[in-house]
C-alpha cells in the first residue's frame, strides 16, 4: 500500500502499458517509463494488467467489460496516478468506466480512478507542468491526433508543445487533422474496405506535408497507418511520440524490417 503522506514529493505512477504496446511495441512502454522518471515520478508496472476492455465495450459486451474494468481498478487504484501511452485506453478508463458503473456500488471508486488517470503526454504537460523535454530527432515530422485523445481527453496542444522543443525536429500539420484514420478498433477488421480507404486518405494527407516521419500517441492508429504505408510502399518512418521525446527513436520504426 502507498503511504500517501510521503508520496507527496515523488508521485507514484502506475503505468498502464496498454495491450498494443505490450504486444507490438514494448519500446513505447520503456520510453514512457523513461519520460516519467525524468519528470520525477516513481514508476511501477503492475503485473496484473492486460487490457482495458475496450474491444468488449465497443462490441456491446458490458459484462466482460465490467470484469476487465474491475481488474484494472484492483491493479491500479492504490497509485497516485495511472498513466498510459494511449488516448484511447485512457479515454476508456476516464470517460467510460464511470458510465459502466453508474448504478453500481463501485461507482465512487471508479470515479476516483478516472480522476487520477491520465494519458502520458497530457500528464507530463498538464499535471506535471513540463513545457520542454530535452531530446533530439532529425526529421520533418507530421503528427496524427487520435480521435479519443483529441475528443475525449482534449489532447491537441500538449504533444505539439513538447515536439516544438525537440532539437532538429520540424513539424508540419497534415490536412484534416480531426478526421479519423480508419482504425476504430474492431471496425478496421469488420469493414476493411472502408477502413482501408480512410487510412489511404490519411496516408496521402501525411505524404502531402512532405514529412519523413509520422508520429501519434496511440498504437492503434500507428499500426493502422504504418501498415497502410508499408502496403502502399510509402517509406515514411512511423513512431509513437513517446519514443521521440524519450530520445529512443533510433530503433526500427513501426513496420520496418531489420536490415
Amino acid at each position, binding site marked *: 500500500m502507498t503511504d500517501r503522506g510521503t508520496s507527496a514529493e515523488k508521485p507514484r505512477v502506475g503505468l498502464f*502499458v496498454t495491450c498494443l*504496446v*505490450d*504486444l*507490438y511495441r*514494448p*519500446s513505447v*512502454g*520503456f520510453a514512457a517509463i523513461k519520460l516519467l522518471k525524468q519528470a520525477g515520478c516513481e514508476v511501477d*508496472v503492475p*503485473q496484473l*494488467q*492486460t*487490457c482495458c*476492455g475496450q*474491444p*468488449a465495450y*465497443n*462490441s*456491446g*459486451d458490458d459484462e*466482460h467489460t465490467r*470484469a476487465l474494468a474491475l*481488474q484494472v481498478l484492483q491493479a491500479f487504484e492504490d497509485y497516485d496516478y495511472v498513466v498510459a501511452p494511449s488516448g484511447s485506453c485512457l479515454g476508456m478508463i476516464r470517460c467510460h468506466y464511470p458510465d459502466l458503473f453508474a448504478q453500481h456500488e463501485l461507482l465512487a471508486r471508479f470515479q476516483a480512478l478516472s480522476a487520477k488517470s491520465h494519458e502520458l503526454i497530457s500528464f507530463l504537460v498538464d499535471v506535471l507542468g513540463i513545457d520542454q523535454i530535452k531530446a533530439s530527432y532529425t526529421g520533418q515530422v507530421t503528427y496524427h491526433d487520435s*480521435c*479519443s485523445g483529441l*475528443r*475525449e481527453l482534449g489532447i491537441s496542444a500538449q504533444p505539439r508543445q513538447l515536439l516544438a522543443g525537440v532539437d532538429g525536429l520540424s513539424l508540419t500539420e497534415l490536412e484534416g487533422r480531426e*478526421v*479519423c484514420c*480508419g*482504425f*476504430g*478498433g474492431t*471496425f*478496421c*477488421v*469488420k*469493414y*476493411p*474496405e*472502408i*477502413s*482501408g*480507404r*480512410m*487510412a489511404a486518405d490519411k496516408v496521402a494527407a501525411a505524404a502531402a506535408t512532405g514529412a519523413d516521419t509520422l508520429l501519434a500517441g496511440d498504437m492503434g492508429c500507428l*499500426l*493502422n497507418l*504504418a*501498415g*497502410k504505408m*508499408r*502496403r502502399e510502399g510509402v517509406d515514411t518512418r512511423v513512431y509513437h511520440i513517446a519514443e521521440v521525446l524519450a530520445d529512443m527513436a533510433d*530503433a*526500427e520504426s*513501426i*513496420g520496418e*524490417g*531489420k536490415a
Partner: protein
Amino acid sequence: MHPRSKFFEANATQALRQPSLQAALKQLEQGFVAGRAACYEALPEFEALRDRAEEVLNHTLENLDAYLLEYEARVIETGGQVHWASTADEARRIVVDICNQAGAGNVIRGKSMIGEEVGINDALEKAGFEVTETDLGEYILQLAEEPPSHIVAPAIHKTKDEISDLFHSRHRELGYHERLTERSALVAEARQVLREKFQQADVGITGANFLIAETGSNVIVTNEGNGDLSSTLPRVQIVTAAIDKVVPTLEDASLLLRLLGRSATGQEITAYTTFTTGPRRQTDADGPAEYHVVILDNHRSEMLAGELRPMLRCIRCGACMNHCPVYGRVGGHAYGWIYPGPMGSVLTPVMLGLDEAGHLPNACSLNGRCATVCPVKIPLPQLLRTLRGRQHRRRLNSRTARMGLSIWAWIALRPRLYQSITRLAMSIMALLGRRQGRFRRMPLAGGWTRVRDLPAPQGSTFQAQWRQRRQQ
C-alpha cells in the same frame, strides 16, 4: 422505399469504386464542413446555444404528451385538423384519404423526411394521384427514380452531367429538347416545369422543421421557396411531421433556427423560413382552405421510453453525416434506407429492426466527430454502442465474433495465462517478421491484411522484458 440496409457491406464496396460518387462526396468537406466551421467561428455563443438547445429539447421530451396536446388544441382553434398516426401505414392511409376527400388529381410535395419515411409518394401514386416533388434535389431524384442520399441535400451524389442527361431525356415530353449544361439553365428549366405543377396542384404536402405548441404553427426552412408555394397555392395543405418535432414556444423555435442553418449548410439562416398557422382566414390574401397535420409516431415513443431518447432531440441538420468519415467515403445510399450517416445508424435499426439494419451501428469507428458537431449534443457514438449492446444480448452478431470475444476476454481476465500466451505468440511473430518488419498475410487477421500490412512485433512482450530487466 424497399430497405437495403442488410447489404451495407456490398453497397459500401460498390460505392467506394464509383468515381463520380467519390468526386461528389469530396465536396462535402469544402462545402458543408467548411461552411459550418466558418459559422462556428463567427458566433461566439455557439456552444452556449448548443447547451440551451439540449436543455429546451430535454424539457420538451420530458413533457412531450402535454406539448403535443397543446399543439393539437391550437391547430383546432385556428380551424385546422390534426391526425395521429402510430405507424407509417396509418400515415399513408390518412394522407390518401385526405387527398381522396379533396377530390384531388395533382399533388405537390415540399421536401419532407417524414414523407420519405412513410413512403407517401408510392402510396399516392398507387391510389392514382399524380405526385410532383418540388424541391429541386427531390425533383431530380423523382425523375431518376432514386431515393435521397442525404437528409438535407438529397441529390448530393449526382453530378451536373448526370442531371443534364436526366433533364434532357425526361423533359423532352414536355417540349424541352435542348441538353443544357449550365447550372443556372438547368435550374431555370426545372423552375419552369415546376411552376406549372404548382398552379395545377389541388393538394400540397410539406414537412415541418418544427411544430410550435403555443401557437399551433409549423415552421419550414428552404432555400428555394418551394415549401411556401406548396403550402399557399393548393386548396388543401397537409403537413406531415413526427411527434419529436414539437417545441413549446416561438422563442424556442428561433433558438433552434439559429443552430439549424449554421449546422446544416453553413448558412446563418436559410433563404426562406416560413411559419404557417391554420387554413386561410377571411382576411388573408391567400392560403389553403383546408389545413391538416399528420403526426407520426413510428417507434418514436419506444425511443422516448428508453436509452435512445436523446436521438429524439435531432433537428435533422445533417451535420453528423457531413462530418462522418464513413458517410464521406460511402455516401448515403450504402446505408440502405432514407436516414444515412450517424443519425440514420441509430434511427434505421429502431424503425426497421436490428435484423434488417444490424450493420449500421457497427459500421462506425466511434471517432466521435459527429457528436462534437451535433447542434443539440446527441451522444451519437454512445447510442450506437447501446444498439451494439442490444445486438450482443440478442445474439444477433456473428457466432465467430462472439466466440472470439469470449475466448479473448476469458484469457484477458487471467493475466498470468494471458502473459504466457502473448509472450510466446509475439516472440514467434517477431522472429517470423524480423526481416520484413511486417506481414502481408496473417491467419485470423484477414480483415486487417486485406487492405494493409500487419507490422511485426518488436520481440517479446513488454511485460516479459520488464520482468527480465527487474530480475537482473
